[in-house]
């Protein structure tokens, strides 16, 4: 793409800028990462577990259903400490990138794991208990690998390094209570104070239902059908975790009781790439806008739909018929609506020059007020503030099809000579465009709604496809600043295409890291 670079050196500047940003971003995120990579995070990823003899077979049914909340698991541990494989390299920590509601626990997996071994995590408010079962699962599940996105590490794409050889359990924001039969939440009768869900979700790891509800002593009826007990680590402060492994009913407990507290985090390292790309693309756009200020002569390719705007307005003037302009079905919280309003500003200016009438029915109240302001300003800029009539930019209704029906009514009765459909549309697009086509109006549509593009393309005279909608206001205004932004977009596109080509080539030969750069985790 050498010709893109002719005459100036944006690429070199881009690369400098990008390098700078990446270095800065890394520096910024260092302290945040330091927090959660503290001493306890697994830093020996591939370390094999202790050579526990985990191979005892046995058709053991897991008995999660029988575990009563508050049960003491301690009893059996000494008896079986020899045969049952003991978890090793157990570490705990605050879950990174969260709002301080979760902690995690990891440990090494055994070399060969089967569902014969069951891990159970217990949780307590104090070192002496009482202990509550947090979660229990067969040893061949819940590997670090599956939860990699919770631990983005130094770079978000490092998740690939999270090994299958470690287990992880995340203890999350949960609350004490239960559902009664009608689905209402009720609090547990006994003052539990601090418990944790017996099993995450209503069935256990084996697909069995969790224990049925509590039986009311007096009536003999079942009080609850589903129990959930929850804990909010942040409120609890420090809490204590204990890990056991069970084979054939024999239990071994990791000797150490682990202490951990949850913290709020202030930077989401999982979104580092989003930030970097936002800054990178944003800076590119701003750079080219600044360049355009110095050197306002920029080339922009022909967009036929926009060349037709003048023709359409001219024809409306000749015929003495109004022009209909729609801003789309979406609210101002959506960017296509803003793009549509920008074009409305340009169109209003031209319409004022030609002295024809501009009708703008609106669907969103805020869009209505902004559209009024824009058209008013457009008329004023054209030197004809007197021609502005606030009643021409009016509200219809927020209901999609009622709006469509009313606009169709306007099209069939006022027979506008030109219809503009800009912004975001849903299924009504075809109703509007077909009715408009039947009245013989020139129709110019512009949308980035992929599902509606086919209908506009087939029924309108001109259609601005996707990005062209956003380029339109620059094209119509020829304002150097906005044109500069287009140039910036193109440069970002070159960068993207370059990355796609490089990434695909590398992928083809087995290198995934470029692709991983673009993995959105949040």
């Amino acid at each position, binding site marked *: 793409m050498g010709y893109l670079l002719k005459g100036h050196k944006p690429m070199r500047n881009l690369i400098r800028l990008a390098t700078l940003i990446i270095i800065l971003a890394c520096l910024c995120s260092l302290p945040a990462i330091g927090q959660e990579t503290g001493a306890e995070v697994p830093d020996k990823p591939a370390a094999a577990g202790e050579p526990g003899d985990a191979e005892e077979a046995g058709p053991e049914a897991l008995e999660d259903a029988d575990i009563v909340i508050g049960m003491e698991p301690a009893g059996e541990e000494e008896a079986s400490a020899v045969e049952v494989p003991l978890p090793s390299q157990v570490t705990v920590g605050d879950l990174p990138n969260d709002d301080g509601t979760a902690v995690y626990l990891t440990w090494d997996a055994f070399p060969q794991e089967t569902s014969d071994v069951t891990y159970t995590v217990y949780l307590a408010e104090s070192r002496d208990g009482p202990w509550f079962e947090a979660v229990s699962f067969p040893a061949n599940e819940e590997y670090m690998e599956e939860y990699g996105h919770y631990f983005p590490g130094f770079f978000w794409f490092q998740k690939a390094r999270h090994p299958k050889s470690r287990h992880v359990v995340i203890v999350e924001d949960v609350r004490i209570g239960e559902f009664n039969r*009608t689905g209402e939440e009720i609090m547990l009768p006994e003052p539990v104070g601090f418990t944790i869900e017996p099993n995450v979700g209503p069935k256990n790891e084996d697909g069995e*239902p969790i224990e049925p509800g509590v039986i009311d002593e007096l009536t003999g009826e079942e009080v609850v059908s*589903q129990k959930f007990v929850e804990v909010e680590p942040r409120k609890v402060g420090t809490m204590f975790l204990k890990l056991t492994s069970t084979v054939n009913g024999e239990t071994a407990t990791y000797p150490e009781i682990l202490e951990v507290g949850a913290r709020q985090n202030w930077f989401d390292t999982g979104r580092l790439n989003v930030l970097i790309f936002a800054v990178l693309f944003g800076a590119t756009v701003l750079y080219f806008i600044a360049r355009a200020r110095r050197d306002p002569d920029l080339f922009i390719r022909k967009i036929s739909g926009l060349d037709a705007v003048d023709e359409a307005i001219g024809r409306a003037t000749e015929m003495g018929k109004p022009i209909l302009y729609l801003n789309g079905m979406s609210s101002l919280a959506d960017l296509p609506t803003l793009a549509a309003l920008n074009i409305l500003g340009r169109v209003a200016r031209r319409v004022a020059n030609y002295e024809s009438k501009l009708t703008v029915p609106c669907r969103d109240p805020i869009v209505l007020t902004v559209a009024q302001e824009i058209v008013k300003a457009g008329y004023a800029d054209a030197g004809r503030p007197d021609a502005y009539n606030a009643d021409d930019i009016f509200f219809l209704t927020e209901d999609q099809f009622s709006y469509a029906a009313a606009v169709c009514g306007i099209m069939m009765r006022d027979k506008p000579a030109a219809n503009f459909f800009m912004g975001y549309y849903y299924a009504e697009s075809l109703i509007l465009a077909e009715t408009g086509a039947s009245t013989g109006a020139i129709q110019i549509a512009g949308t980035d709604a992929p599902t509606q593009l086919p209908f506009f393309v087939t029924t309108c005279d001109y259609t601005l496809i996707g990005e062209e909608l956003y380029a339109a206001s620059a094209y119509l205004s020829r304002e150097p600043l906005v044109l500069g932004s287009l140039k910036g977009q193109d440069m970002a596109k070159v960068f993207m295409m370059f990355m796609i080509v490089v990434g695909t080539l590398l992928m083809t030969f087995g290198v995934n890291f470029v692709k991983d750069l673009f993995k959105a985790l949040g």
Partner: protein
Amino acid sequence: MDKERKPSFVERFLQMDRRIIYTLVALAVAIPLLFPMGLPIKVTPEVRSVYDTIENLPAGSNILMSVDFDPASQPELYPMMKSVMRHVVRKGHKLAITVLWPNGVNLAAQCIEELKLEFPEWTNTVDYVFLGYQVGGAIVIMSVGNSFSETFPKDYYGQSTAGMPIIKEFNKLGEADYMVMFEAGNSGDWWIVYGTEVHDVPVAGGVTAVVAPQYYPYLQAKQLNGIIGGLKGAAEYEKLTEVPALATSAMDSQSMVHALIFVAIVLANIFALMLVAEKRRRAQEGR
């Protein structure tokens, strides 16, 4: 040069008034609804499996249906539900009906009323119980694992369910021999995960075309015994039960409209090409 020339049929066809097309579309929809043509429909194995299961169960087996859709999906799922329900009634199975979507209740009620007209001896509380709607979604599913009569103390018509004859033999999910759920969303996932998998009840799904792709993995995993997908599936079921009804006619309508548009487009293109050739020929002659 040929201003005076009357437009030929070909030209008039190409510039056909859109209202002619509208009329043709309306007719193509309406006529098959009135006179179902019964265009040949190929029965897919996943639909046949549902039919076979219901057909081969001994009479008087317990069947559970869950109606989890609302009027937005009525054109697709209602004919399907009616057809399956008719089959169940015809085979003399016991039927319990639950509803997880609030706006589905009336659709189920209407279906029952219509079937009562066809089968006057089909009695409430003995042959079927319409449990109605209960808030709670997945919770309801877990709860029916224990008991229908406790989850739904009153049925849709306000009668107490506890003493009903049907409830004596069929009072929880685990006692069902088969289940068919009609799904326009993801409540089917809950049924599978919290209900049928747990109690080991074979289950089939009648789903809209839009959500069908999300249910096919269950079929592959044998967690679903069959899938009736969209209007086409409903039409297949009607074919199997040999009662062509709403779906068959609706499918006929679909095929007719598609065929109409297809033929119109193909003709228009042939005519347009002919016109071009004609013009070229005339231009050569004129030269």
